[in-house]
C-alpha cells in the first residue's frame, strides 16, 4: 500500500510565548516492510534553530527552538509511505512463552539481552499483581508465545471499552486498568504491562492507522488519528511481532510506524517547553490517504 500522510498540530497559547524548545518524533521509521521515500516537517513561525538526530531506540528526533513573541505554533509533518504486507505467521509454531521469558532472564549475552530491556519497568508502566494474574489466564503452561499473546490481545479488546472521554494522555495505566476504558494508548500500555508482568519483553509503538469511511460515505479529511499499538519479542527466530489490542489484530497493511520505546514517554510525537504561556489549546489533525 502507498499512503500520503499529513499530520498537523496547532498550539494556541492564551498569552504570547517568547521562547520555546521542542522535540518532534514525527519521522516514520525505515523498516523491512515500510519505506518512506519522502518526508518533510514544516514549522510556523520559522524556528531559528533546528537539528536532527536519533534517540537511543533509533527514532528520528527533530529539535527546534523558536525565539520571539508568538501566540500560535503550527507543526505539519507530511510524508509518502509504502507499506508491504507482513508474511503470514503461524502462531502455533512460535516457541513456548516460558522459553522467551527465561532467555530474557539470562545473564549471558544473546539476542534476548537487548529485548530484556523491555521486560523491566519503565517510567509509565509498572505491572501490578492483578495484571500479572490477568495475563496468566492466557499464558497457560507451554503455550506458544504468539498464540497466548493473540489470546490476550483478544481478551483486552473484549474486556475494554473504547472511550475517548474516559482518559487523556496523562492518565496513569492503573486508572485505565481499573476503568477498563480508554483509547489506543491505554489499550497498548495495559497490554504491555500484562506481558511484562509475566516476564515477556514488550515495547510501545506509535504511528498512524488508515481508517475506512462507513460504506457509501466519503472519508472526512483529518478524521484519522495518531495510533498506538505494541510489539512483542517472540524469541530469536521470530523477533518482534506487532499486536494491536484496540482493533484485535496483528498490524499489516494499514499501520504506519513512527517510533517505538518503552512506553508513551519515549515516543511522544511533539513535546515542548514554552516560556510565558499560560494555558494552551492543542488541535491535532491526521489524514492518511491512499496515494495513487
Amino acid at each position, binding site marked *: 500500500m502507498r499512503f500520503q500522510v499529513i499530520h498537523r498540530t496547532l498550539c494556541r497559547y492564551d498569552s504570547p510565548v517568547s521562547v520555546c524548545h521542542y522535540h518532534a518524533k514525527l519521522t516514520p521509521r525505515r523498516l523491512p516492510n515500510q519505506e518512506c521515500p519522502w518526508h518533510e516537517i514544516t514549522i510556523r513561525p520559522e524556528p531559528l534553530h533546528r*537539528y536532527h538526530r536519533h534517540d537511543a531506540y533509533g527514532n528520528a528526533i527533530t529539535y527546534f527552538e523558536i525565539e520571539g513573541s508568538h501566540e500560535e505554533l503550527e507543526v505539519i509533518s507530511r510524508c509518502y509511505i509504502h507499506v508491504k504486507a507482513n508474511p503470514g505467521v503461524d502462531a502455533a509454531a512460535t516457541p513456548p512463552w516460558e522459553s522467551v521469558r527465561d532467555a530474557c*532472564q539470562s*545473564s549471558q549475552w544473546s539476542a534476548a539481552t537487548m529485548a530484556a530491556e523491555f521486560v523491566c519497568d519503565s517510567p509509565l508502566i509498572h505491572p501490578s499483581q492483578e495484571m500479572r494474574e490477568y495475563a496468566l489466564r492466557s499464558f497457560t503452561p507451554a503455550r506458544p508465545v504468539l498464540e497466548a499473546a493473540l489470546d490476550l490481545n483478544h481478551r483486552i479488546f473484549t474486556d475494554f471499552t473504547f472511550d475517548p472521554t474516559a482518559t487523556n494522555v496523562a492518565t496513569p495505566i492503573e486508572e485505565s486498568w481499573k476503568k477498563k476504558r480508554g483509547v489506543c494508548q491505554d489499550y497498548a500500555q495495559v497490554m504491555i504491562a500484562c506481558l511484562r508482568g509475566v516476564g515477556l519483553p514488550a515495547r510501545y509503538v506509535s504511528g498512524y492507522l488508515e481508517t475506512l469511511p462507513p460504506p457509501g460515505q466519503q472519508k472526512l479529511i483529518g478524521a484519522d488519528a495518531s495510533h498506538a499499538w505494541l510489539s512483542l519479542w517472540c524469541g530469536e527466530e521470530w523477533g518482534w511481532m506487532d499486536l494491536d489490542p484496540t482493533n484485535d489484530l496483528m498490524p499489516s497493511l494499514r499501520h504506519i510506524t513512527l517510533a517505538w520505546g518503552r512506553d508513551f514517554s519515549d515516543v511522544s510525537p511533539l513535546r515542548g517547553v514554552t516560556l510565558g504561556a499560560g494555558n494552551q489549546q492543542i488541535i491535532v489533525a491526521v489524514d492518511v490517504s491512499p496515494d495513487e
Partner: protein
Amino acid sequence: MPGVWDEMFAPDGSVRPHWQSFSRMLAQLGAHGMQDNSATIARLLRDHGVTYNVFQDTGAAGRPWFLDAMPLLVSSGDFAVVERGLQQRIRLLRAIMADVYGLQRLIKESWVPPRLLFANPGYLRQVQDVNLEDDGLCNVATDLVRGADGNWVALADRCQMPGGLGYALENRIVLSQAFPQEFKQCRVQRLASFFERERDIFREMASAHRKTPNVVMVTPGPHHRSYFEHAFKARYLGFPLVEGADLTVRDTRLFMKTLEGLRQVDVLIRRVEDVSCDTLELDPASWSGVPGLLEAWRNGRVRIANPVGSGVMEAAAWLPFLPNLCRQLLGEELLIPSVPTWWCGQASVLAEVMKEPRRWVFKKAYCGSDTPAQSTAALEEKSLKALLAEVRADPEAWVAQEALVLSQAPFWTGSQLEPRSFVWRAFVCGTAHESHVMPGGLGRVSPSSEGFLVSMVAGALSKDVWVISDEEVALKSLLVDRAEALRVSRPPGDVASRIADHLFWLGRYAERMEQTTRLLRMLSKRLGGEGGELQMHELRDGLRLAQEVKLLDERLDVTGALALVHQEIKDLMDNPKRVDGVADLLGKLRYNAAAARDRLSDDTWRLFNQLQEEVSAPLTHAGAYGITAKLDRIILDMAAFSGMQSENMVQGHGWRFLELGRRIERGSASATFLQAAVHLCEENETVLVPLLEIFDSTMTYRRHHFAKPKLLQVLDLLMLHAANPRSLAFQLEAIHQQARLLPQGSSLSGAATALEAVEMMLRHLRQIDLPALECDALRFEVLRQSCEEFINHFESLSHQLTEDYFSHATRRSR
C-alpha cells in the same frame, strides 16, 4: 566491647598513637573546657546560619545543624590506604559509567546481568549518545565504615551531586576556631588545597572549551534541604550560584540571564537531580530544569559536572559486581572492598538470601527511593514477613547487605564522652588524568548510643574528621582570597536577573519592616507610661494613621479599648498570617535574602539570624513596655542592616537594585503616611508628633523649630528637605542617582524609561510651593492629590523595573 573496633582506644585500653596528642590536650581542657567549646560551636554555627533544609515553601527556618565537639582522628597511615582506594574507586566508577552510556561491554561480555542496568531507573536513555570518556564524574562521595578488624569498607557511593562537602568545610571552619591550639598542635591536614584542586578542575574543564570561560553552579533554590551548602560552596569556590530560571538555551548554547543580557556558560556545576535537569527531555514537571540543556551538552557546547545520568552509578546493586568490573575495566584488584552485598535480582541469589533472612539489612537497590534501609535483626516476625514479601514481589529493586558492627567513635554528650557508631563520608574530585581525596570529610554518628546508623535526613549528628599528618602542615584557606576569586570570575555587571529581583524585594521588605516597626513602637509607647490627655490624643491619631495605611482594620473601634489595641499590636508582631506584620515581613526578608545568599556577607546573615531570634523571643517585660523594648531591638537590627548595605556591599548592579527597592518603598510609604496625616490634620494637628516619630525626624524637627510641630513646617521637613534622609525629596534624589547608572535592561530602553519617570516626579515635587498653599483654602486637597500621585508613580516605577529587568527570569514567588 569485644568484636568492635574502637577508634580512640586499643583493645588493651590504651589511647591509640594518633590520638595521644589530642587526648592529652583533652585532659587539660577538662569537662568545663569541652562545655565551653560546645557552646562556642553552637554559637558559631548559628552565626554562620548553618541549617539543613533551610527553607520550606512557607519561608520557615530549617533545622539547625549539629556538630559534635569531638573530632574523629584518622592516622596518616589509614588515610593513605583510603586515599589510594578512593582514587581507584573514582576511576572505576568513571569507567563503568562511560561503558554504560557507551559500548555497554559490561552487558555484552556478561560482566553484570543485563537487568541490573535495564531496571535501574537512574539509567537515562537520553544520555546514551553522549561521549563520557573524557567527561565523566568529577565528584564522588563514598560512605566508609570500619569493621571489627579495623579495615575500611565502602557502604555506598554518591555520584549525582555528592552532598556534604560544604558542610564538611563549615564543620572544619567552626571546629578549628573552637580548638585553635589543639588543631595546630595535632598537625591536622588542611582542606583548602583540596578545594583549590577542585576549583582548578572546573576551570580547566571550562578553558579546554573557551578562552574566557564562565563556570556557574545551579541549585534548585532556597527550599532545597542542602541550599546552605550550595550557597556556601559556590561562594567558597568563587562561582556564581544560579537557579534553572536564570539559565536559558539558545541555539544549543547555554546562557545565564544577567541584567546586561545573556552570557554564555561553559561549565555547569549542578546541584539539581538528574531527572530535573532538562524539562524538555527529562521530568517535565520540574521547576529546576533548563529546557534544551541536554541538547547543548550533547553538542559539546557546555560541560556538566557531574554529567547528567550519574544517578545510574548510585545504585547499591553495583556493589557485588565491583571486584570483577575492576579487574575487567582497570585490570586491577579492588582496593577498598564494599560491605558484603547481594543483589536480589538473580533467582539463585534471592534463594540464598532468603535462607537466613535475619542476617541482612535490606536496602533499595537503586537511587531515587525514599525507603530507608531496614535492619532485620530486631524486626518482629510479622514485620519481617511483610518485608520479605515485598522483596520477593520485586527482587530486582532490593539488595541484602550484611549487618556490620560499626566502629565506635568518641562522642561528646554534653557532660562526658560516649562511644557511638561512626560513618565517614569521604570526598574525591577528579578528571580522566588525576584525582584527589579530601583529607577529612563529613563524619556522622548515630543520635543515640544504641542507634543503628542513620542518614542526615533522619537526624544523624555530624562530626569533623581530622587527618593527622606526620609532618608540619602548611596554612591555607581559600576564604582569604575569596575577594580575589570573586574579582577574577565575576565581572561587575554579571548579576543574574533573578538575583537582582530578589535584592530589589529584599530592599523593599527591609524598608517596610522599618516602617512597620516604627509605627508599632510609636503606638506601644503610648499604651504604657502615665497616660495623660495629650498622650491619649496622640495615640488616637497614631491609630488612625495606622488605619489609614491599612495596617490596622478600619472598622476596628479603638477609642478607649486599650486592651484591644495591645492585642492587635501583639498579633501584628507574632502572627505570621498577618500580611505586612513583623513575622510575615521577616519571613519574606529571609526568603529573598536566602535566594541572594551568595551576594550577602556573613555579617548580614548573622544579623538576620539575630533578628529571627529577637522576633521569636518571648517578651522580657509584661505589658506595653515589653513590646516597646522588643521593637527597639528590632529597629536597631534593621538600622544595622541598612548600615551594612551602605558600608559593606560593593556598589554594583546588585546593590543598586537593593538600594532602589529600599528607596522606592520608603518613598511610597512616606507619601502614604503624609497623605494620611494631611487628611487627619484637617481636624487636629496632634498627629504630627507620631508622624515625626515614624519618620525618625523628631530630633531634626526640634533642632529646626523648637516648637510644637506645625503642619507646614513638618511637611517641609518630610517632603521637600533634600538633606533629610527620611524625606520624599531625598528618596527621589537617591533613585535619580541610581537610575542614571542602571544597565540597559532587556527592552534596551529600561534605563531611559526609569530615569524619565523619576525626573518627572522630581519636577512635580519641586513645583509644590508650601508657603503659597498656606493661604489656599484647598491646600489639603492639593496636598492629598500630590501624595496620591507620588504613591502611584512609585508603584509604576517598581512595575517598570520589574518589566525591564526581571521579567525574562520567570519568577515563582517573592
